[in-house]
């Protein structure tokens, strides 16, 4: 069993993902990424008109994968998925806030 050392990069501003790479990571097409941007589930971290010039970070990959799961699990459209994701993020933010106040143990 050989051990291989390989190059790693964290998906941040210095190593962002292009729209085609984000699509590939989700097993989808670039058109689907364009739809995600249109409904506001993800946004390009560099202001650009053309999808070819868009760049995304790790948080966008996470949101895109979650949207993919919602589509699959419940057969919902991307507009509804955007709303569910917003609510999910709000629940997580509020739970984190409660934990930060030392109130979250019973949640």
């Amino acid at each position, binding site marked *: 069993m050989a051990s291989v050392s*390989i190059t790693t990069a964290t998906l941040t501003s210095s190593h962002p993902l292009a729209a085609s790479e984000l699509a590939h990571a*989700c097993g989808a097409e670039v058109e689907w990424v364009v739809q995600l941007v249109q409904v506001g589930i993800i946004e390009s971290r560099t202001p650009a008109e053309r999808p070819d010039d868009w760049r995304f970070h790790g948080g966008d990959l996470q949101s895109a994968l979650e949207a993919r799961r919602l589509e699959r*699990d419940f057969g919902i459209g991307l507009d509804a998925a955007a709303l569910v994701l917003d609510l999910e993020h709000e629940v997580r933010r509020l739970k984190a806030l409660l934990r930060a106040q030392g109130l979250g143990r019973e949640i």
Partner: protein
Amino acid sequence: MDFKDYYKTLGLERGASEDEVRKAYRKLARKYHPDVSKEPDAEQRMRDVNEANDVLRDKEKRAAYDQLADHVARGGNPDGSFQPPPNWDEGFEFHRGPNQGPADHADFSEFFSSMFGAAERRGAERRNYRARGEDHHAAIEIALEDALNGAEREISLRSQEIDAQGRPEWKTRTLSVKIPPGVHPGQFIRLAGQGMPGHGGEAPGDLYLEVRIAPHKLYRVEDRDLYMTLPITPTEGALGAQVKVPTPGGGVVEVTVPRNARNGLKLRLKERGLPGKPPGHLYLLLEIALPPADTDAARAAYEQLAKAAPFDPRRHLGV
């Protein structure tokens, strides 16, 4: 390898209709959704339910699976372990459903990967197209110290590859992964070329590792911020104090507890959280701990305090 009873997972009978499968799945997917579920094993149950649904809602996979289930019902292997009969999937061709990507199967069981994962890939090869390999998804759990300072970690990945005879075989690869300092939960580390092999001579896919941080005995991680409970005595809380606090980097800092500090007060140590742009903060949550009244002197001191500082914390109750 254990045989998985997908009907049982979804609470269904063998002859369930497509509509019944869909309804049972959606009900359970809501029940075990990690953001709403109160079940302790919600994450594992969600994975099982997803896997069962993936097979039972797909006509081809379900038909092949039913055939396998019959084989198991007829006795299977004498030692109780499960081995698929040769050419069990002959005549079936598996595809991933629409809206499904490589991440959707990342957490599925060895049973699923052996049965359907390899068959899906064989199907893709039979269709003889050229395409870059799929990206692979996995999670990596690291210690907080590794997230702070960066580290090099070895990870072992088991995956199925197709041998020269077209048979699936398990391969274990060990990769040495550099964890950059300042990674935080939910970030992804991308390993170029470490995903699934490409088809028709195309490049392999990439591997994405989602970063998780293991629970730490002192600190809790929220994004880039760290939280720690700091116990103080009533005296320190009332009069104010300088107390020593360990920082996640291994140092010690002296922190000023303000006078009349209440329980739950949050003190912020600026930029002492996870490094980054901007760096996170370290928050200390004050927790007032009572000295035990287990000696005559301590009891007398409490009584003296009650006399010197009369205080009714229940006044607002009005009784």
